[in-house]
């Protein structure tokens, strides 16, 4: 196999394998970019964004240090939920634990002073599925499958770099496209740099 063929095949096969991720990132970006449109659209249904699952007395000691994940995991377990979650403290009076998969999400709010735990299920929305997939990543969940998704996110990023490198290589071999290609590349770079300076 020649180097030229290797470049071409890498470009195409990598793209075919990662096509679902690439399309998902593309389409879901539209939801982020036009979030107010989608929010207004769903508002018309007059359905509540959150539905109370339970609201009950509860107590947990919250650690003074920054690592809130053990406390979050305990709250989640005692609420009967398993899986990926995020935890944050918006203020001294509250601790929020956000449980999610691609389809559903539940927010658990622990009210420190009141010793109360409120669980609310998020309404199903297609745009939330897309944004949930888009935003999912990282290696903090500690499960094999979540880490595997994180690795795939890295692979998509590396693939984008490979597509740039192989794409430029293939373009340069097409002599008749060099002039317009150079203009497109230089124009894009100049516009991007101008944005950096002016935004």
């Amino acid at each position: 196999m020649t180097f030229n063929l290797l470049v071409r095949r890498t470009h195409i096969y990598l793209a075919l394998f990662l096509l679902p991720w690439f399309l998902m990132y593309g389409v879901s970006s539209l939801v982020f970019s036009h979030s107010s449109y989608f929010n207004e659209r769903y508002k018309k249904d007059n359905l509540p964004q959150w539905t109370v699952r339970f609201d009950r007395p509860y107590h947990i000691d919250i650690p003074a240090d920054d690592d809130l994940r053990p406390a979050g995991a305990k709250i989640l377990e005692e609420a009967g939920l398993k899986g990926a979650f995020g935890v944050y403290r918006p203020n001294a009076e509250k601790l929020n634990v956000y449980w999610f998969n691609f389809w559903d999400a539940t927010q658990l709010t622990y009210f420190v002073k009141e010793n109360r735990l409120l669980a609310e299920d998020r309404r199903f929305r297609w745009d939330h599925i897309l944004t949930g997939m888009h935003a999912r990543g990282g290696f903090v969940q500690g499960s094999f499958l979540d880490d595997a998704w994180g690795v795939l996110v890295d692979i998509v990023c590396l693939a984008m770099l490979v597509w740039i490198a192989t794409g430029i290589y293939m373009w340069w071999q097409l002599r008749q496209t060099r002039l317009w290609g150079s203009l497109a590349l230089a124009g894009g770079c100049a516009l991007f740099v101008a944005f950096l300076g002016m935004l």
Partner: protein
Amino acid sequence: MFSKIIRRSHMYLALFLMPWVLMYALSTMAMNHREFFRKVYGGKPAQFEKEREQTYTGLLAANATPSQAAVQILRDLNQDGTFSVQGRPDGERLTIFRQDPVIPRRITYTPKDGRLVIERQIFQAPAFLERMHRRRGFQHDYLLEDTWASTVDLVIIAMVFWGLSGLWMWWELRATRGWGLVCLLTGATLFGVFLFVI
């Protein structure tokens, strides 16, 4: 002819949007490894350092909203552009966050003594990339910001187009149909499995 148009559009669009694709690839990696980069930078978010302090001589209208006051102060400082604001111009302080992509600034105005403190955020590459990644939407009152948001939309359209035109070009290459189909089905199956298992 149609095939040639598809091929050329795929390529020229990619060349033009290369900086955006590069930025999104690098910024996604930075966000995917946020914990690692946080440790690299000492576990703290990017800090602000004082750039200068001065007396503000401009007159703010008595009934100015926080946004109106922020716009006026930023214009007087030649820093006009996208911002967010906290506090009130008739309160204890008004804090303006000027969302410059490279050097974000925090401008604190204390009406009592008319002082302005201008601070700049210390540059950190992952934070810069994340700011660029998250910059989108048409919610700000700046034409330049809307223009940037339009380029983000163009990238979105281009991504879908690259996917579909790529499929078209692949199918035209008979020699790659077999392995291509294997790659496509494997990727789609893996993605489908992930939809239900995590």
